[in-house]
């Protein structure tokens, strides 16, 4: 192993763990909140089973606003909110707040798009068989849209990794922050390149896994 990596091994591991924590929290938020929000966005559209112009417009607007913020500004803008729930605005835990919020907005849009790809007729068949809203969602929509949902999540996770790299500004740490502090600011270009390699490998693994899984579960 190259000497610099050995020298900074402890810090590198710490950075990797921080990245995993931040991205993990983003994924959890995306799945636990982004998925329901995206589903609601879809179902509240005109002509859909929960048609509700009001709810749709509000969700749509909020998601758009969050997504149109330059992410760095969003992080700064959310500091008071972060302090309110975490107790501090600094550190890895605090960094998960803005990351989770962008994750929800990001993934919910992709969920909405995947659900729009489900043929209208499938939902009609479900309703004609007497399915409830919950059954339409879980037994039909998600089954039919599952490969799109997985691909969307894959795309989202890769964006989350990218977002996590700038969390150094609020002391969130992570690989990106490490690369900037040691590699860039201390002119250890080789160290920076190694960090970039780690990120590239990580993204490759995630993309490969996502694409493979989505292909395997797609029977359409």
């Amino acid at each position, binding site marked *: 192993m190259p000497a610099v990596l050995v020298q900074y091994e402890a810090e590198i591991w710490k950075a990797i763990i921080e990245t995993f924590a931040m991205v993990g929290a983003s994924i959890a938020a995306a799945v636990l909140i982004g998925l329901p929000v995206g589903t609601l966005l879809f179902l509240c559209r005109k002509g859909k089973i929960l048609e509700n112009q009001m709810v749709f417009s509000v969700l749509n607007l909020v998601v758009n606003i969050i997504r149109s913020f330059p992410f760095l500004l969003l992080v700064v803008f959310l500091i008071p909110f972060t302090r309110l729930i975490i107790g501090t605005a600094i550190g890895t835990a605090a960094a998960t707040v803005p990351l989770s919020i962008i994750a929800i907005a990001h993934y919910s849009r992709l969920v909405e798009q995947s659900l729009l790809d489900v043929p209208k007729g*499938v939902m009609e068949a479900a309703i*004609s068989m*007497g399915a*409830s809203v919950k059954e339409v969602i879980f*037994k039909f929509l998600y*089954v*039919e849209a599952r490969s799109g949902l997985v691909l969307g999540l894959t795309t989202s996770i890769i964006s989350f990794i990218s977002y996590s790299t700038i969390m150094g500004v609020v002391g969130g740490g992570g690989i990106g922050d490490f690369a900037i502090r040691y590699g860039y600011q201390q002119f250890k270009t080789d160290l920076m390149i190694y960090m970039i390699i780690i990120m590239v490998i990580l993204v490759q693994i995630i993309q490969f896994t996502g694409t493979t899984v989505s292909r395997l579960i797609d*029977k*359409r």
Partner: protein
Amino acid sequence: MIKLHKVSKSFSQFQAIKSISLTINKGEIYGIIGTSGAGKSTLLRLMNLLEVPNEGDVEVNGQQLTKLTSKSLRQARQSIGMIFQHFNLVANKTVYDNVAVSLELAKIPKQERKNRVIECLQFVGLEKLLDKYPAELSGGQKQRVAIARALANRPEVLLCDEPTSSLDPNTTAEILGVLENVNKSLGVTIVIVSHEMEVIKSICNRVTVMADGEIHDTVCIEPAGIANISNSPNWFVEQLVKGGE
């Protein structure tokens, strides 16, 4: 079995169904025919409240669907099967699961579900294909799965919206045969919407002709029987030559 009483349906400004009343008796094979845009599909979809009427009452199996709570409506729909032109199967579920899901919705216990799925697939002649996905089936086979799915909850009524319109003549005859069998051996009342005269003439005993959202006329007919179309290449040649004469 099905009674529509002064039912109207508008889409924004456009009135697609104009105060239609009709009665369909138990055991009938009832046809609805008319040009494109006449309102046939809309009329059919009013029969299970896929379209909610602006005015009028819809009664099926002695229940006023228009007066039911959403929960009872969902239950009532389990006794009203429906099939579609484009089959509308769940592409990510196997043939078995496509049929089983309608039993799940009706809360049928798992053990009984299995027997019923097999029974329904046998009825449509697809018991060997239960592990296949819809993408691996022909159009006729997909429609058979859809029929099995619609029959799984032993409905009183089967609504068919252009059930053969995306099928070739041979397969059309096959599917019409299955539908006739559903009516004769299971006693299911069938409503068929089609723009194909041949289809309607072959198995219906009463037919409503629709135009511009209204009933133009309703006639009783003697079903002509399903035209026997041969599979053989010679038959195609004969037909072509005959046409040229």
